[in-house]
């Protein structure tokens, strides 16, 4: 998850199975706990906990998947580029560009 931010993502979505329906029994609950840790790290280092979120849905819910992506992409668009990308853009002196999710 942190690598995604290092690689330039402005926001990261983590998709898990529906709670109670995971093939790995509690894998999605563990993923949620791991994500909570990453959220705390992002908040602590000034990138912002709101830039990462977990969504739960089944493999057959294509329309729901698309809705989640649109919703989160819009939120990240509102947030603007992550402080990492701002720092990189300033370092490279290029104008603030496209938002990456």
């Amino acid at each position: 998850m942190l690598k995604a931010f290092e690689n330039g993502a402005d926001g990261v979505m983590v998709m898990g199975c529906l709670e109670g329906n995971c093939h790995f029994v509690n894998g999605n609950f563990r993923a949620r706990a791991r994500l909570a840790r990453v959220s705390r790290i992002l908040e602590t280092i000034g990138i912002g906990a709101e830039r990462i979120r977990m969504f739960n849905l089944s493999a057959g819910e294509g329309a729901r998947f698309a809705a989640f992506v649109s919703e989160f992409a819009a939120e990240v668009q509102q947030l603007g580029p992550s402080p990492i990308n701002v720092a990189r853009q300033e370092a490279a002196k290029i104008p603030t560009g496209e938002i990456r999710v």
Partner: protein
Amino acid sequence: MITGTPKPIEEILQMLEPYDTIILAGCYGCVTVCRVGGEKEVEILASTIRLAREASGRKIAIREVCLERQCDPEYIETMRPYVEDYQAVLSIACGAGIQFLAEKYMLTPLLPGINTGFLGVTERQGEWAERCQGCGDCVLHLTGGICPVTRCAKSLFHGPCGGSSKGICEVGKDVPCGWQMIIDRLKSLNQMDNYSKLKPYKGWNTSRDGGPRRIVREDMI
């Protein structure tokens, strides 16, 4: 195993303030098992530090390594070819490993990335508990396999004391009385006679009272 907990990232970033190139060294031993200093934790901490530093406008270069054990010289030696190319080493091994690195690389500042905890066990995924204080004079054969030094908050040898109530120690409602556990266990093993075999007092000369301890095994040298 030796357990530990991560230091707060703010504390680590403050320690790293003077440096722009570091080695972040993990250990495949105990700290990997208790999920605080292994290869995965090296990756997470390295990413965190890089992100924090880049966001603050001052990048840091991190070489990520994980040694087989930081408490054995042959594994520490594997860092020698490149250690002086970096300004500092941040280690997330236990305090023993960090000190051993510091002893071997006298010209490089060593920084601790974790707070070393205790000798303990994994009670369940993500939960560790203390079992041994390394007092150097084990009596577990007399106490039903339950250590009075560790499990009794006062390290008594003649408990339970007046602070024990319904099997719970007065220091906390989640802390079982070590001596009640010992008595219950001895009864279930039909070994209550062991209770009278315990020494009236414990000699602490095998513990830390004589300063740092050393073991020399002539047959192994």
